[in-house]
């Protein structure tokens, strides 16, 4: 049976085609203003027997394409524990959500924490800050890696932090030190979340922000345990969704 896993997120739509538990193909596309239609392109290929959707667009996708839906929490848990059978916890920093998940021995989700309604400390936050500093995302991460120390950023709210950054720029503060300070503040907040769900190592760091080497380095430095980053960190959700496909591909009533 070939299963299409769709992760319809705020920044990207990710698709994974799974044949008997093995990835045969995958795609990542920008969500744009109409993520449902972006996903429809993948569905229209017709190369699947069943669909499982996750991400904030999961219910819309289930209504539109049929199949089943699981939350990102379950999907990331499943994906991470198949990629890394020893994984004890998962960190997913996506476009507008941060999730920390603590896994049981069989890869089952035991506990999780997710940020509230604002985008504090997420991919979106980094995008806004990079723009305020006149960096691309990549440049900002590099600058953060090079800076010897970071400026303390007290605000985690995207709007307030942007004003704080603007204020620091006007005071003539070094951009690289600000960039490092921003990464450090996200790392500190994330490590606090990990502590609250009693996350143990090895920790799988997935989601779009796991592609940011400065974030990975800071998390690895602050976390008491091994930190693993999948090669394609962005598609762990879609992979996990496909893995969560019930045996019977008929739509499940929930």
């Amino acid at each position, binding site marked *: 049976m070939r299963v299409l896993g769709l992760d319809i997120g705020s920044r990207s739509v990710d698709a994974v085609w799974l044949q008997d538990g093995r990835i045969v193909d995958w795609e990542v596309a920008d969500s744009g203003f109409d993520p449902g239609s972006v996903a429809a392109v993948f569905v229209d290929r017709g190369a699947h027997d069943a669909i499982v959707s996750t991400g904030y667009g999961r219910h819309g996708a289930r209504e539109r394409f049929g199949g089943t839906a699981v939350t990102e929490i*379950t999907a990331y848990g499943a994906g991470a524990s198949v990629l890394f059978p020893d994984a004890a916890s998962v960190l997913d920093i996506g476009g507008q959500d941060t999730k920390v998940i603590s896994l049981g021995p069989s890869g089952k989700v035991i506990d999780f924490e997710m940020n509230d309604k604002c985008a504090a400390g997420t991919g979106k936050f980094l995008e806004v800050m990079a723009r305020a500093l006149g960096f691309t995302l990549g440049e900002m991460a590099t600058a953060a890696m090079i800076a010897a120390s970071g400026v303390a950023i007290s605000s985690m709210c995207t709007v307030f932090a942007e004003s704080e950054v603007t204020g620091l720029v006007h005071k003539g503060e070094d951009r690289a030190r600000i960039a490092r300070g921003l990464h450090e503040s996200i790392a500190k907040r994330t490590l606090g979340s990990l502590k609250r769900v009693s996350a143990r190592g090895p920790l799988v760091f997935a989601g779009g922000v796991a592609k940011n080497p400065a974030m990975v380095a800071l998390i690895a430095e602050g976390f008491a345990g091994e930190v693993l980053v999948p090669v394609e960190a962005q598609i762990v959700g879609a992979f996990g969704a496909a893995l969560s496909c019930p045996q019977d591909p008929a739509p499940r009533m929930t």
Partner: protein
Amino acid sequence: MSDQAVDYHPVWTELGLDLAAHDALLRAVGELFGDAYLTQQNRPQGMDYLNFVMSEVHGLRIKELDDYRKSGGTVFGTFCLYVPEEIIRAAGGWCVGLCAGAEFAYDQVEQIMPRNTCALIKSFMGFKLAKVCPYIESADLVIGETTCDGKKKAYELLGDIHNVYVMELPQMKREQDLAMWRGEIRALMAKVEEVTGNTITAESLKASIKEVNDKRRALQRIAATRAADPAPISGKDALLATQVAFYDDVPRFTQMMNALADELEARVAAGEGVAPKGAKRVLVTGTPMALPNWKLHDIIEKAGAVVVGEEMCTGSRYYQDLVSEDASTLDAMVDDIAEKYLDINCACFTPNQGRLDDVVRMAKELGADGVIDYSLQFCGLYEMESNAVEKTVRDAGFPVLKITTDYSMEDVGQLATRVEAFLEIL
């Protein structure tokens, strides 16, 4: 259901409501109710009564209050369980809850109170300032209580524009606190007697104790049926019953709820339910959910689970304890009332072990698979106590999810993800 033939605009005009704003509010609540309630499957027939009450919540009931006042009756508006309905009814008064469950006119509210005030307080003030709550406009006197700093100060602001009397609630449950509380109940009696012009007698108080206990007994019967799997009634419907208990005519409501309980008991005997047997069962605990706040229950139940209990003021705290019916003298009855009401486990007390015990006991008795702890943002008391709730519930072996939210709909997507993920791990 109402055929909407009756036009209540004359009554609303007389009460001084802002008709255009009020019409808009009723439309919004109607839509919300339709989406949350009328889409449910397998509802008990007894819910027809509550559907009817909801369709007439600002109509027929307001007309009843109007007629009652015109015949010399006095209406008391309350916000909180600690105001004893028995005392008000013993003086021939009627007690109604006040609108505090939806976001309304926050722009006006934020001119007089801080933005970071809890939704419940902002809501009641918004309804008052925008003149869209016919209950507060029907209330000859609003009786407040000092259950939190926000409300305490809000009553001062409300006092500028409405008739308000405030009871002082102790914050501990020691002997000296009970003594103080007995004094507060007696002071309330004097106030109620003065406003109504009627005297409270041993006979009238005995009768009202019985009457209000009967209302609680009917709600207890409904609550008990929810321990069955499949649950015979949705959490949303059971929550609505408790919410309406604050507004409705007492004997009529009691009769209708007993009829609903009869039906639910028959459903349990027949193994009939609202959700399939084996559906995930959730106990909700935390801050009260004032009408029409159905947000969390709606998310939980639309995700396929069923809420089997509410450890909250719009739940078990409202009906689980009765006032003793043994006393024969007025003084002894008043003492019984004081004792019963001080027993309610609000987070405004310290310590508040009773609430923690109740949550665990209810989770066990109702066969809950997990507990969701619900706090309104900026409710310092419940947000603070949340930590103890989480620890206690976890130690008792139940998974727990903490939710902090308000009345806005902007976080519904994220809450749904958290609730669904929680259900997936149960």
